[in-house]
């Protein structure tokens, strides 16, 4: 049964591989829910003056789509792949605290169930947008119990991710096999280290904010309902979490892109050391840019300008990361497999999403962009483009590792083409909807937004099914039960070979190779 294990074994497992698989399955499940919600929004906005959803329903759909996609889909999908791959890459038997890992997973699952469950409560779920701005999030303006439950679910998720970050940081620092020095640490493990370090710093302030908000809603305190700075307080706490969260989401995808590029270009990473330094610089700087989400709140303008500068500063190392990835292909021996194609698409979207983000870093320009579909286009290029494409590439790339099956390459390439085209039809028009406010449930004919919105809806009906087809491809290949070879990509990384000495991650091969006993891992560690 189930991958050779009984149901009980799945429910009680503390093995990092099976927990990784559980994470991936759950995240894909939430992806389908959140994607469906996205489709509902596109249906509603396909034409002017539609009444398919009423404004309150639409608000709930917007909120759940945002919360689910960012926190219950993209973050855990990266964590799931990390769960499976990182211990293999660093030569650890398991994560440092296996039971904590299991607790982290189940907490994540139940928090997601609670969040989705809010819509079945009387008066519906949260309707405040995923940013939960105060004082709209207080009991006075959103009295439904579903909104309280959503906040508690978010808090539970914060606990889950904090547990995961404790686990991964300890594992990567303490559980590396003999010989797996920091310079040899594979780049995906580096990216997870940075992700988890960021998560450690980002989620506690959110948890603090949620604690205050919960006490507001349950105990009747007045932190966010008071007019004495309550709105700005929430902004500060939320965005101190919210901006690093964007990087928490995108880092695993960048790590995957690096691994895939190295494997399919048969090249070491371009300037690996500089790449890691740039990675660390982005991690560090991303803690200091959150106030660019508050340019129009009217707080002290000099502070905002300082944050504008840090935001621009972060684009320099980030650009270095992208260039490093592109130059990895230089003089390579490139095989355009499905993961490679997805990664190339992800680089395209991260570049476009990135430069549009840089434009928003100028307060003057952001005064116009804020709260419009331009912003929606920007972050969907980064999130739905880079992150989702990167994670799909990761799934394709490690699928032979996880399931011992090869997916159908032709089918995968076709779905790639469809999803890439659909993606661009869906999100590119957003850059031209410069004056359309976000989160409006409908618009009038006079606004002139109808044709672009119709395009986007058409794109949604191409992109959504393409993602489903991708998932189907993976499932079908698993059901077909044709085992593949153990290293179909001729990859050089530890998780495939069980030996780091030939790894493309390190720019220098050790001059004195370690003895086979210490560098070669035991068979069942890698399999």
């Amino acid at each position, binding site marked *: 049964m189930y991958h050779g294990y009984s149901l009980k074994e799945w429910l009680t497992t503390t093995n990092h591989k099976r927990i990784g698989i559980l994470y991936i399955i759950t995240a894909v499940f939430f992806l389908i829910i959140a994607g469906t919600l996205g489709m509902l929004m596109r249906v509603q906005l396909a034409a002017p003056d539609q009444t398919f959803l009423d404004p309150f329903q639409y608000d709930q759909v917007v909120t759940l789509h945002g919360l689910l996609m960012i926190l219950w889909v993209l973050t855990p999908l990266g964590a799931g792949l990390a769960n499976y791959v990182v211990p293999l890459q660093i030569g650890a038997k398991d994560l440092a605290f296996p039971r904590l890992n299991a607790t982290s997973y189940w907490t994540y699952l139940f928090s997601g169930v609670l969040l989705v469950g809010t819509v079945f409560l009387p008066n519906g779920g949260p309707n405040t947008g995923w940013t939960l701005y105060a004082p709209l999030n207080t009991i006075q303006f959103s009295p439904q119990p579903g909104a309280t439950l959503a906040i508690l679910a978010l808090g539970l998720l914060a606990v889950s991710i904090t547990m995961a970050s404790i686990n991964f940081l300890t594992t990567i620092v303490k559980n590396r096999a003999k010989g797996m020095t920091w310079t040899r640490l594979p780049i995906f493990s580096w990216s997870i280290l940075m992700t988890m370090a960021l998560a450690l710093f980002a989620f506690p*302030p959110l948890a603090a904010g949620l604690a205050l908000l919960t006490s507001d809603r349950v105990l009747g305190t007045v932190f966010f309902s008071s007019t004495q700075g309550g709105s*700005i307080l929430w902004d*500060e706490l939320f965005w101190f979490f919210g901006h690093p969260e964007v990087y928490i989401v995108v880092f695993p995808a960048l790590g995957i892109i690096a691994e895939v590029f190295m494997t399919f270009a048969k090249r070491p990473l371009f300037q690996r050391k500089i790449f890691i330094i740039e990675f660390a610089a982005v991690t560090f700087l991303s*803690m*200091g840019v959150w*106030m660019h989400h508050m340019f129009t709140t009217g*707080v*002290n303008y000099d*502070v905002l300008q300082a944050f504008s500068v840090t935001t621009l500063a972060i684009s320099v190392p980030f650009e270095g990361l992208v260039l490093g990835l592109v130059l990895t292909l230089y003089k390579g021996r490139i095989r355009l497999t499905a993961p490679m194609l997805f990664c190339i698409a992800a680089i395209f979207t991260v570049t476009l999403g990135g430069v549009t983000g840089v434009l928003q870093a100028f307060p003057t320009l952001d005064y116009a962009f804020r709260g419009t579909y331009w912003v929606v286009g920007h972050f969907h290029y980064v999130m739905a483009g880079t992150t989702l494409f990167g994670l799909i590439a990761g799934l394709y790339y490690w699928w032979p590792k996880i399931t011992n099956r090869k997916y159908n390459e032709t089918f995968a390439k076709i779905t790639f083409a469809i999803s890439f085209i659909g993606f661009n039809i869906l999100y590119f028009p957003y850059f031209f909807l410069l004056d359309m406010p976000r989160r409006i449930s409908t618009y009038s004919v006079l606004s002139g937004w109808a044709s672009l919105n119709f395009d986007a809806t058409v794109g949604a009906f191409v992109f959504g099914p393409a993602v489903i087809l991708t998932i189907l491809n993976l499932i079908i290949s698993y059901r077909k039960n044709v085992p593949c070879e153990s290293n179909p990509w001729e990859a050089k990384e530890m998780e495939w070979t069980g030996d780091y000495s030939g790894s493309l991650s390190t720019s220098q091969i050790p001059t004195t190779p370690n003895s086979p006993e210490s560098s070669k891992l035991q068979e069942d560690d890698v399999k």
Partner: protein
Amino acid sequence: MAGIKLYIGIWLGLVIATVMEVVVRSLPGGASLIVLVIGLIAGAKAIVISLYYQHLRYEGIRLAALPLAAVIGVVFLGVSAAFTLAMGM
């Protein structure tokens, strides 16, 4: 590892510092000066506890960097929040 006398000595120091905080409160002087002094005493107490009772002094800077980073994060959040308070256009 430190000896029992050191631990008790530190405890005594912490208690005295606590009493001092309360005394400083009732002294005449500018409100901001009192806040500053009390803040410094509280910070010193926290540092002493973490250095000796949590024996960070003996663990070395590499481990101490972790809580230190967290504290720096908090201070950064606080400083930024403080600046945004300044209402000026």
